[in-house]
């Protein structure tokens, strides 16, 4: 698939930006702070309904304005869709598909699929478990959009339950929230397990294309040593576990079982990557995870013309020639690639791209 048109209104630094885009490679070159990343951030928002740079939507709306708009035309195997999002300050966002308002912005998920590489990807390997949970959940939503609902319900149930736990609740008051945690938590864990199983071969393959040597591995690590694989069995397991955790939960005022405490354990040969791998190995690993994600979504797409967008935000500067080479191979297999770079010298010499220069919020070819 590819994005043929992008229109930003009061989004970050852009009061009004219209771009006609084509398949192939498009680069946006500009110094930091000139607004190049804002463009790919907007494309990412169309795909994921969230920014890769900020947890809150507020910074996305241009100063002194109440709402921002992102509009994009997506072409998938000859079919065209117009996706629109209205980002509101202090109110729920709204969305339209082909000019029809949708009940929930979540209905937009899956219409534009994209995989985004950023300099912060190193945190996938070196950072806290939350980085890896986020990686899994974002990919899960791209793959099966209905999980956005499961995740939202789980997170809300978790907040409600934690609020209750802080007030020394009656057993009877906790019961409904125990059920929610077990139901949505088990669905999410089961989906992550499925995802890892399908993703891992692609990640292993990608790592081999970057680096020789040890085989990599990834296993899901649940905080309470859950054994089941299916959602139904996990639900029962979590439900039985909850009463045994009561005392600790009451003392600390937090929920101690569930997907919010889990991690993806990455290994290189026999050793865990975190804390042991070199900077170079860590970068190779991070790239392999993203590349694997891209390959998985491509393989599960509707065939020719449904590959996800590849977005490379300022990553070339971080990589040596070997790792650049691995990315170039991925670029060749993609229908559309959006790249940002601070200086032209960061871009590979062999690049056959359409180049835009971004300066003080203006974008010129």
């Amino acid at each position: 698939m590819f994005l043929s048109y992008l229109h930003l209104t009061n989004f970050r630094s852009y009061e009004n930006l219209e771009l006609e885009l084509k398949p192939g490679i498009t680069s946006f070159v500009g110094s930091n702070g000139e607004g190049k990343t804002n463009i790919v951030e907007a494309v990412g928002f169309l795909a994921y309904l969230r920014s890769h740079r900020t947890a809150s939507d507020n910074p996305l709306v241009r100063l002194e304005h109440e709402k921002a708009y992102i509009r994009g035309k997506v072409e998938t195997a000859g079919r065209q869709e117009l996706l629109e999002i209205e980002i509101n300050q202090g109110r729920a966002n709204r969305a339209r598909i082909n000019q029809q308002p949708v009940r929930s912005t979540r209905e937009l998920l899956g219409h534009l699929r994209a995989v985004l590489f950023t300099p912060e990807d190193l945190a996938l390997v070196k950072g806290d478990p939350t980085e890896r949970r986020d990686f899994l959940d974002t990919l899960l939503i791209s793959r099966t959009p209905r999980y956005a609902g499961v995740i939202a319900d789980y997170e809300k149930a978790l907040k409600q339950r934690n609020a209750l736990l802080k007030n020394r609740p009656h057993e009877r008051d906790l019961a409904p929230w125990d059920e929610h945690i077990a139901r949505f938590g088990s669905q999410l864990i089961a989906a992550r397990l499925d995802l890892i199983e399908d993703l891992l071969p692609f990640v292993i393959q990608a790592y081999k294309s970057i680096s020789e040597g040890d085989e990599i591995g990834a296993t899901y690590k649940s905080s309470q040593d859950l054994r089941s694989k299916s959602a139904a069995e996990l639900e029962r397991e979590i439900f039985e576990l909850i009463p045994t955790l009561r005392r600790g939960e009451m003392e600390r005022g937090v929920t101690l079982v569930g997907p919010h405490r889990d991690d993806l354990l990455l290994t290189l040969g026999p050793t865990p990557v975190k804390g042991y791998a070199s900077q170079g190995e860590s970068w190779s690993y991070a790239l392999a995870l993203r590349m694997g994600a891209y390959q998985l979504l491509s393989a599960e797409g509707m065939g020719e013309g449904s590959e996800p967008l590849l977005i490379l935000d300022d990553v070339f500067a971080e990589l040596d020639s070997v790792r650049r080479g691995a990315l170039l191979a991925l670029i060749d297999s993609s229908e559309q690639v959006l790249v940002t770079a601070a200086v032209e010298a960061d871009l590979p010499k062999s690049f056959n791209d359409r180049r835009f220069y971004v300066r003080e919020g203006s974008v010129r070819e």
Partner: protein
Amino acid sequence: MYEGAIQELIDELGRLPGVGPKSAQRIAFHILQSESVDIQRLVEAIREVKERVKFCEICGNVSEDVQCRICRDPKRELHAICVVEESKDVQAIEKTREFRGRYHVLGGAISPIEGIGPENLRIKELMTRLADGAVTEVILATDPNLEGEATATYLARLIKPLGLTVTRLASGLPVGGDLEYADEVTLGRAFEGRRTIQ
């Protein structure tokens, strides 16, 4: 910022649900430019609603009398009570004409984040009503979202030991949505297919 009275009006309007700062400003200036008699009617309507409308002593629905129209109606069946969050849900269900029993309005749903626990809802009143033996079926029609589901689960656990049939409106209702927004066909079908809670 405007001066004095107009800003005060904008601030007050801005506190209403669903009214953003822009709309508050638009409504305020609309009021300022309207005919006095029209505004007088609006002021009267607001005053009347606060003075005349009360909550039914039986079910908690809005009512102009001590008891609401539904609770007073001798043709309504006594064996079934439909539990809803708000009075507006009573209106939504009444439109479907599927339900001939009576209602119980809780006044919200359980939400620990907002500090709303079972003791803040009209649950004690519900249990008192169920104790008289006339009611054999309780239909839980709380909103199909997390808080509504949690409230239904809580009530089911409380009511089941009394030996009554407890049912929940079948899904088909939009998840995360208000009952009020469900269209009548969906809501009517949900009533037909209500399921017993385990």
